[in-house]
């Protein structure tokens, strides 16, 4: 499986891929490009990755969360390239027999991805463009 994609993310396909007859719950998280960040107006975001390493790091996050919650099935797609406001940069689907595990896993996955996966974003707006997290 590849976790990175250059195309719009197919949410329904992702959910279908994790659903088993034994699941009573599916928690989904979508990260969206929003129209502002730290007081600045945002029009689009360019996402870039160190692709092979990002794939490995996401796989590591999945393995860790699955080890902690063995009943959960997890699917993830992270989009790269230029995204407009309202488009999904990441979709995470977690299914489980019970909802607590599905919610916990979904949250743990997004928290960890934001910490370690080598993906960057450059915000573009009327005031110019800037790599997020890098102080000039």
């Amino acid at each position: 499986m590849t976790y990175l994609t250059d195309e719009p993310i197919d949410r329904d396909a992702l959910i279908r891929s994790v659903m088993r007859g034994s699941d009573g719950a599916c928690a989904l998280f979508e990260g969206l490009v929003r129209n502002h960040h730290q007081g600045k107006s945002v029009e689009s975001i360019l996402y870039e990755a160190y692709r092979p390493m990002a794939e490995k790091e996401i796989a590591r996050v999945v393995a860790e969360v699955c080890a902690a919650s063995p009943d959960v099935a997890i699917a993830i797609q992270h989009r790269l390239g230029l995204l407009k406001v309202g488009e999904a940069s990441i979709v995470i689907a977690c299914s489980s027999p019970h909802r607590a595990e599905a919610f916990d896993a979904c949250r743990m996955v997004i928290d960890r991805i934001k910490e370690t996966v080598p993906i960057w974003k450059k915000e573009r707006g009327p005031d110019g463009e800037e790599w997020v997290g890098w102080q000039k």
Partner: protein
Amino acid sequence: MVRVRLLYFAVLRDITGSATAEIDLPNGSNAADVWDRLRTQHRELGSYRQPPMVAVNEEYVGPNHILRDGDELAFIPPVAGG
């Protein structure tokens, strides 16, 4: 001497103006040494004494990790995925 392939991403690619470089280093050099060299070449990095996170061969390592011939080295600016 060891030869290392250096990858530049995101803000570092913008600053250096290139995506990759081959660099030759004395034996026993570590990632922090390479960062120091970059800082002398690019004044935008001057105030960043500590390197950002470091990856060698697609795995995170510490800044004192000794580089070997053929290694792929990447400095990882603050990540912003998700």
